[in-house]
């Protein structure tokens, strides 16, 4: 009898549903749910930027990334995470698109549905653009497939995906608003145009690129932020120059990460100064006369920051300048430096004479870094700028140059960007080295140098090296640094008055510097040999994907 009581009272329902998750079966049935699904596509993880450490703009002490080392394979984390994350976003975008009919049947009005369709198409286009740029031919899916079908699928030729992706971008351009009047700022017409232009540029589709860029410029909603150096600071958010950004926020826990901050900032305020700009980058900035350093009479290798394009010191910390509360001075005899906070001199840890792990090549990043990076436990939350207006201008110019349709609009686009860097009006051609040349070959060189100066540390150098086929040269040379230990540096360089660079490095027609004279003289040291392998112009398809699917081929050379 007691048992019977227990029996009755103990029956639990076995139809249990998740307590802290929604059900997919009736999702996508109202605006709130669809918009929540769309917003998921803007998560930081789906918008990766190519890393600086895959390029010649970057030095990490004596080590190289697997790409620079030529050891990239299908098991590399960079490869698998890019592949997996982009396809996750694609599947989610496809799911939203597949549910639009259901949404319509639930009474959501057509204008909303068009907007949602445009937004999902935008994300899908961006994801495929990223995949194609890195992997070439990839699997192309526009709907959610079941697992059995998935195993029968192979790679679609790049050309077909490019066409379909342009169409997605066009759908986005047609359906997205120029601006959002209130609420959350999401993808816009301008973003679709700008990213379409970028993808077209990467594919060498110059007229598509120039048309898209032109259309973006003609929207007349974007303009260059007045100050180049302020643009990247946390104090400048979602500026008029930003076309598409993923916001970061310390309070909302989306940041660039303490590890990156510590590796970037100098050692006196407690950083590590390990991820540093390369000498190649320092050498790439033109002088204020617009000439490369080996041609300009204004360049002095002992004072490498003097008379340089202003973006040089906006990107790399000038020796002797104030940086993060200290004077930054890597000179081996600068054993003490001024701490602006205490007003006193203190031991200089940004100097390899005092601190072995101070920057190995004496350079550290300035761009985007300010004293706010020392707060919040040394974390920072500047905007992740996916694309900005200066890029649109330079893409327009580059596409027109490649089309050999060189006109005033091309020069104007370049000069707008350049004059902003000098902080002067475009028309004040005496105050900055305005571009006046109309020759295609010279302009091609100018525009490539301009991009490198303008976009350093913004994740664009890697694809530029790839599409210009420059990695073969730029990533097989050496990465250099100052001599170590300090005694040797003093003996060979500073005691002879040869600090910083004993001589001016030679710059070739692709803007690649040659430091071999100093190396042979024993005045500088080789930090590492870059070892790029040309097979990496296309990344390997992830090993796992190839192993489980017989229909999936690997890229050549792996």
């Amino acid at each position: 009898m007691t048992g019977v009581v227990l029996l009755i009272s103990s029956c639990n329902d076995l139809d249990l549903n998740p307590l802290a998750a929604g059900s997919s079966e009736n999702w996508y049935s109202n605006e709130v749910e669809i918009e929540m699904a769309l917003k998921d596509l803007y998560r930081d993880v789906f918008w990766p930027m190519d890393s600086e450490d895959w390029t010649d703009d970057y030095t990490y002490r004596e080590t190289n990334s697997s790409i620079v080392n030529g050891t990239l394979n299908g098991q590399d984390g960079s490869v698998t995470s890019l592949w997996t994350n982009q396809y996750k976003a694609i599947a989610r975008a496809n799911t939203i698109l597949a549910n639009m009919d259901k949404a319509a049947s639930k009474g959501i009005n057509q204008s909303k549905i068009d907007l949602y369709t445009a937004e999902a198409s935008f994300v899908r286009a961006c994801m495929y653009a990223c995949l194609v740029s890195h992997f070439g031919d990839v699997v192309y899916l526009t709907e959610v497939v079941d697992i059995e079908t998935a195993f029968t699928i192979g790679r679609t030729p790049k050309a077909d995906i490019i066409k379909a992706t342009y169409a997605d971008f066009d759908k986005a351009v047609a359906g997205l608003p120029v601006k959002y009047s209130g609420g959350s700022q999401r993808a816009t017409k301008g973003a679709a145009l700008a990213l379409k232009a970028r993808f077209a540029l990467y594919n060498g589709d110059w007229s598509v690129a120039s048309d898209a860029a032109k259309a973006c410029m003609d929207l007349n909603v974007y303009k260059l932020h007045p100050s180049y150096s302020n643009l990247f600071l946390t104090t400048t958010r979602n500026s008029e120059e930003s076309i598409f950004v993923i916001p970061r926020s310390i309070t909302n826990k989306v940041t660039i990460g303490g590890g990156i901050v510590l590796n970037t900032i100098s050692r006196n305020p407690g950083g590590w100064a390990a991820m540093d700009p390369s000498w190649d980058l320092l050498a790439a900035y033109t002088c204020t006369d617009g000439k490369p350093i080996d041609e300009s009479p204004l360049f002095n290798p002992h004072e490498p920051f003097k008379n340089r394009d202003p973006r040089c010191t906006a990107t790399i910390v000038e020796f002797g300048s104030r940086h993060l509360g200290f004077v930054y001075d890597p000179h081996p005899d600068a054993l003490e430096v001024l701490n602006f906070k205490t007003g006193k001199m203190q031991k200089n840890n940004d100097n390899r004479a005092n601190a072995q792990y101070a920057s190995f090549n004496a350079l550290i990043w300035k761009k985007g870094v300010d004293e706010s990076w020392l707060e919040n436990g040394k974390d920072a939350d500047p905007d992740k700028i996916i694309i900005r207006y200066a890029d649109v201008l330079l893409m327009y110019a580059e596409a027109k140059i490649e089309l050999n349709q060189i006109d005033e609009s091309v020069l104007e686009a370049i000069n707008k960007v350049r004059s902003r860097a000098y902080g002067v009006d475009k028309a004040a051609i005496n105050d900055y080295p305005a571009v006046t040349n109309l020759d295609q070959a010279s302009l091609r060189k100018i525009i490539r140098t301009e991009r490198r100066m303008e976009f350093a540390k913004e994740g664009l150098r890697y694809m530029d090296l790839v599409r210009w086929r420059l990695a073969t040269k730029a990533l097989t040379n050496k990465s250099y640094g100052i001599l170590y230990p300090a005694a040797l540096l003093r003996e060979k360089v500073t005691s002879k008055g040869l600090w910083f660079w004993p001589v001016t490095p030679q710059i070739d027609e692709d803007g690649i510097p040659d430091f071999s004279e100093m190396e042979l003289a024993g005045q500088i040291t080789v930090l590492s040999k870059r070892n790029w392998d040309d097979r990496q112009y296309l990344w390997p398809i992830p090993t796992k994907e190839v192993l489980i699917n017989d229909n999936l081929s690997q890229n050549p050379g792996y």
Partner: protein
Amino acid sequence: MLLAVIFMSFSSAKIFAMENSEGITIPLTKVTLAEAIKKIEATTDYTFFYDAIKTNLRQQVTLKADNQKIEDVLNALLKTTDLHYKITDHQIALIPKDNFKSTQSKKRITGVVVDETGIPVIGANVVEAGTTNGTITDLEGKFSLDVPLNADLLLTYVGYVSANLKVGSADHYNVQLVLDSQGLDEVVVVGYGTVKKKDLTGAVASLQGDMLSSRKTTQLSTALQGAVAGVLVTRDNSAPGAAATNIKIRGVTTIGDSSPLVIVDGVPGDINQVNPNDVENMSVLKDAASASIYGSRAAAGVILITTKRASENDLTLGYNFEYGWEIPTKQPEYVGIQRFLEMTNELRYNDNNAGGMYQTYSQDQVENWIKYNATDPNNYPITDWTDLILKGSAPRQTHSLNIAGGSKSVRTKASVTYDKTDGLYADRYYERFMTRVNNDFKINNYLGATLDFNFKRSKSHQPVFDPINRMRIAAPVYAAVWDDGRMAEGKSGSNPYAIMENGGSKDSWYNQIGGKASIDFTPIEGLKISGIVAPIYNFDKIKSFSLAAAYTLANDPNTIGGYYEGHSTTKLTEDRNDSYNVTTQFIATYLKTLGKHDLNIMMGYENYFQYNETLFASRDQYELTNYPYLDLGPLLLRDNGGSAYETAYRSMFGRVMYSYANKYLLQANIRYDGSSRFHKDYRWGSFPSFSAGWVLSEESFMKDADLNWLSFAKLRASWGTLGNERIGNYPYQATIAFSNALFYQNGIAVSELTAAQQQYAIQNISWETTESLDLGMDLSFLDNRLRLNGDYYHKTTKDMLLALEIPDYVGFDNPDKNTGKMSTNGYELELGWNDKAGDFIYNISINFSDFLSEMGDLGGTQFIGDQVKMKGSQFNEWYGYVSEGLFQTQEDLTNSAKINNNVKVGDVKYKDISGPDGVPDGKISSEYDRVLLGGSLPRYMFGGNVSAKYKGFDFSMAFQGVGSQPVRLNSMMIEPLGENWGNIPSILDGNYWSSLKSEVENAKARYPRLTRSNISSNQAMSDFWLFNGRYVRLKNLTFGYTLPVSLTSKVSIDKIRFYASANDLFCLSKFPKGWDPEMGSSSYPITTSLLLGVSVNF
């Protein structure tokens, strides 16, 4: 001489035997004496006693009874023998005639019978050998008996080895009975019931609680290591309070969770919720026939734990105190400072020839570092991180108190235990308080009840930062402390010593309250109906206060140089988890004996519900560092979250056990289970099983064969199916998961809720089924002194719940589905010997087992790093390249396939096995050149126990090991400059390929050249790094001494025992120097425990 008296009666059977008021009728037969005895016992309620060795049971006798009195029957029967009989209250003693005559001149003796722990044995039989003259011991274990001079007394008690006593001139005797761990009359706990060991048909291992508690581990799970054949217990550290990481019964059954179901006193629970001292016994249900009564959740085997209860007339109090030290067994060693400087430079040179030989450390530094250290330790540090962080030993202590009291109507057993174990590094300890009270009530002849309660509270206190990994990584060239004692910078703020000391601490409290109430109703003899409800509540609280910790400059105590890694702000994180589960059961059992037919029927219903909810909250950037409360942190940087889930199942089950004449044993089980984890159309599954046993030694032809040496022989066979459902809580539902993304709203970044389907769900997902076949035998020889148990099994799992690799371009996480098969073959052997020579009692047992799991068609592949599961592979088989040694010459390098263009002489050479076209393609690629390299799981597991006693002294020893296991030398063991700044393991020095060495030396090199730039390809999984990780370990060694009762009884103490015990005293293995075979590469060390203890019983 050892006497063995076999009680040939079955007391349970006698209850229903007919009263023998009339005469006996047995047709005339010529039989052996043994058969005659059985026949009489079968037809009457008389029971025979005799000396099994001295009595010739195979002699032919004549048995005839025609409604005769028993005396007449016996007279006729024994006429031709040299035996006489004596009848006392339905007991017939057969006595040799010469003995019988000398039962004259008696004297009265007294004695006390105690068990191994000195506790009085109540109700033990004390019988004069060969007679019916006997008595039983009283509540204090005392007896008195009139016996002839020089009589042999036999002392027996169920579950104990019989003891004999020669009566001499003394009048008082103290006798100690030794537990018979393999006694055939031992009662074994099985699912929802008990059965005598000799009646078992399935593969069940049974362990006495004393055996587990004697291993002196804090957690019960670790005591189980090496104790049972076929039970593999693994651990990877001995941190305070640490439990075993994994328990596997008969190897691997499924790709998912292979941990067994643990049932504590009939209710699903956790093995570590039970104090080892509270365990009465533990049963491990290994085959499907034994486990299938637990159906859906028993696929990986079942562990049944029964806690101690008081018996009638108990009245005892025991106290035990133990104090000891935990000492690390081994620690990895690293090259000293000099070689570190030299080898670092060599490595950098290898990676960048152009940089020269002194890239990192100048020639001056290399040559003079040690000298400069004496005068300038801040700039030339030499830090031994392990020495600095790890203490030589850590104390531990245990207090426990046991109280038992029983009367006819109420019985209570209570225990209280407090443990505290300190850590091997600063500010770490674990303390635990446990109590358990088991009550039994007898209301009347029809109604009984039990009410059990247990409570456990543990607290673990430790630094927020666990220094072990960093301690092993950190290189000696970084300063831990400046020369004036201040904490130093370490490597750019990575200073494990300072962070451990100053980085704040974390406290975790785990509270568990469990209870069980049952009402037992016995309406008629043999039928018992029980209703049981058993809730368990868990409340966890975790508080982690991570402090901002700064270092000051070496030459300037007033200037902050920076903050330690991960400790630049002060952050409080609080977690609260609470969960509960309720099991309700309704069980009916019915026992019936009809002549030689024994029937045991059980039916039951069970319901289980579990609910779990978590909550966390944190604030960051506290200004104050001594107020670990949420309110005091900045509002802007607060964060919180929570989640919940629930599961339920419902089951009906039943069992029939039948035995005929104790010879033929049959058992059938079925369980019908429904789980909330599956869609309602695929929710229910039924799991049947059958088993049979044949007691060979009961057969007359065996008895006729006159096999004196064989005491008992049984063959067993079983077949059954089991289920598994452990794959998340809602696997069939394509759920929408929520996250967050940031958007600008009016120029401010706002976090908004986002939603996405992340799983690709398969709605018809259902039970995974394991089918298992077991063949076994139980043999005893030489008067049950030698025992051999053996089992062979074959398990097949089908419709395996598996998260197969799907192409990532599908865009969802790998879904679970019913696919794939795997099978496991294995065998187990247990061999035991127990004997006694005078006062010397000893017992040896060893166990051995092996299994091999092979994957069938999985419908795909599952990759897990260096190991793989795919069709035809073993379970988690190593998967990687095949190495061909090291590249020794440039010529070899030029002409060989390479993994990339960065490979140099001195790197690992891999075999080009295939390519995209199925033939070697001149490249080493991860797609085409990796193959199966052998299983990663242990083979040939063994363990054993030896125990001995001599008067007051006792000794025991346990060992355990693995006979073969391919193990990988992992990066923590052999990687130079881990994370590019770390230490260099000393096993590398002198054993790596080097351009500075001769060809002859390099030909013998065990490790590749020093490199960082090519480290990932050298350390890619390949057979180059595999070695046999077999080991044997002395698990426990105990010496004890019990003071003579004559001494202690004067102060009213029953027993005082002192003991010294050591756990994990030594280990033999081929692991690299400094590595314990069981220690995880970044784990807290495995420790040797040295313990001293005293127990007092009143």
